[in-house]
């Protein structure tokens, strides 16, 4: 551990004012190919994720967004740099709820058992965890499906279940990796709204990866635009439309929405041009 990280841990609250939930400090990551040559994926990510904010990450396909999440969730070690969670190294599972790309429900478990998974892993007794899971399912109108197997549910419902499974362990920070990408447009709009209101009621810190610029603007307080691989943060936008206006739909019809959209689009567009040449 470097001296600078130690200092950061002591000074858990940075000068910015808002509390920092996760601080990424010069995080680098490279994988190795068959011959053992390093493939740089993350060049340098330095980013403070604030307590209770909703921040979106947009970036070109394959630039390293999921890799960044895997590092935050402590599934991967960074090659260099450090991550601090509220000033201390993240303890896996205790603080972070990670909803991985694609709805990853266990096909051999019923919906109820799927929701209970996180509680089961930390050793909550069976009757307790099932009762809790049932309660959560009821709250989100999924109680009818408690005993169904995942393959009988629609994509949108499976995503809801995956989100509930993430929420039930009461994480401080929720990582959402393209939760809506497999859904049709209408379901997306409904789910965006729904998830935002759920998350608001829990007052969580949320990090969302998405390919959909509009979705990022409509839902977030801030949007981070990433560069091509090896990636770093190219630009940070302060948004906060849905928080101020109260819904994603209103955010989408606000004039600032279009301006931001064009700006972010331009950021990504330049990169695409760069890639082509």
């Amino acid at each position, binding site marked *: 551990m470097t001296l600078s990280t130690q200092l950061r841990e002591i000074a858990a609250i940075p000068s910015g004012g808002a509390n920092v939930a996760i601080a990424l400090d010069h995080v680098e990551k490279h994988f190795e190919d068959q011959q053992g040559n390093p493939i740089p994926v993350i060049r340098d990510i330095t980013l403070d994720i604030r307590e209770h904010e909703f921040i979106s990450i947009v970036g070109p396909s394959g630039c390293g967004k999921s890799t960044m999440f*895997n590092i935050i*969730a*402590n*599934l991967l070690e960074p090659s260099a740099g450090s991550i601090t969670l509220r000033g201390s190294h993240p*303890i*896996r*599972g*205790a603080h*972070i*709820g*990670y909803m*991985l*790309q*694609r709805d*990853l429900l*266990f*096909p*051999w*478990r019923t919906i109820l058992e799927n929701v209970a*998974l*996180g509680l*089961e*892993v*930390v050793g909550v007794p069976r009757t307790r965890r099932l009762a809790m899971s049932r309660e959560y399912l009821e709250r989100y109108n999924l109680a009818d499906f408690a005993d169904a*197997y*995942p*393959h*009988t549910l629609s994509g949108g419902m499976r995503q809801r279940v995956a989100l509930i499974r993430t929420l039930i*362990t009461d994480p401080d920070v929720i990582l959402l990796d393209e939760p809506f990408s497999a859904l049709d447009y209408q379901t997306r709009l409904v789910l965006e709204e729904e998830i935002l209101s759920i998350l608001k009621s829990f007052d969580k810190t949320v990090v969302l990866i998405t390919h959909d610029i509009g979705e990022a603007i409509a839902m977030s307080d801030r949007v981070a635009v990433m560069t091509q691989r090896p990636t770093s943060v190219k630009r940070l936008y302060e948004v906060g439309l849905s928080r101020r206006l109260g819904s994603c739909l209103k955010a989408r019809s606000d004039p600032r929405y279009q301006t931001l959209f064009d700006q972010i689009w331009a950021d990504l567009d330049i990169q695409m041009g760069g890639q082509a040449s």
Partner: protein
Amino acid sequence: MSTASLYTRRIEVSAGGTKPRKHQDHSLWKENLWRLAIVAALIVAWQFAVNFGWVNAFLMGSPAGIAIEAWRQLQSGQLLSDTWTTLYATIVGFLLGSIGGSAAGLLLWYSRHVARIIDPFVVALNGLPKISLAPMIIIWFGSGMLSKVALAFIATFIVALLSAYQGTHQIDANLVNLMRSLGATKRQIFLKVVVPATLPWIISAFRLNIGFALIAEIGGEFIASDKGLGRSIFVAGNLFNLNAVWVGVLTLMLVAIALYLVVSRIERYLLPWESR
């Protein structure tokens, strides 16, 4: 690399193992009626051919002769005792081999290192026709039940091990990542992801192993035994008693079908999420 390439070959389930599909009642009836008609036609044609002398009953047997022989063996109790002997040794060997092999294959998930070390041995044993071990096994375990159980065990163990081990390699890495992100221990990942995710592969090995266990069993009985359907077929064949051979063969067929049905039942019980 050799490990990966050797294990990517997925064991295919034979036609007998396809999942039963739901039909409407009357179409199922019709299908069964057709099947019955085909069997009846075959029997009648065969009997006619024998009666008119188109076919040599001595070399082919005849339906009537088979029925008489079956009745005789049923009355004497020989058929049941042979069937029981064969069934018992097959099932015990099959269960020990399939369950033991599956467990061993699953446990290899724990240690890639061990898996890599034993890989060439497993491959060599898998390629070896297990029945070639029969003379040795019979020398060691005698001509009774024990040697047949041992043969069926050897014939099924490696298949189950390979299938389960391959299964552990096909697990969606994201499921494991999800468990890790929830803070699961390796043991929890094993019990809650690896075992259930591998069950379909294990069941498919069970299906294949019914056939392998029967081959080992019958082969063993051919070589040295005092009882069993294999011995009965072998002895009848040596005596050119084709009707008795047929009785043994047809009984074996029934045994195989019964075992398939049992495995299908187990499958539906163990994999409730796969049957809709």
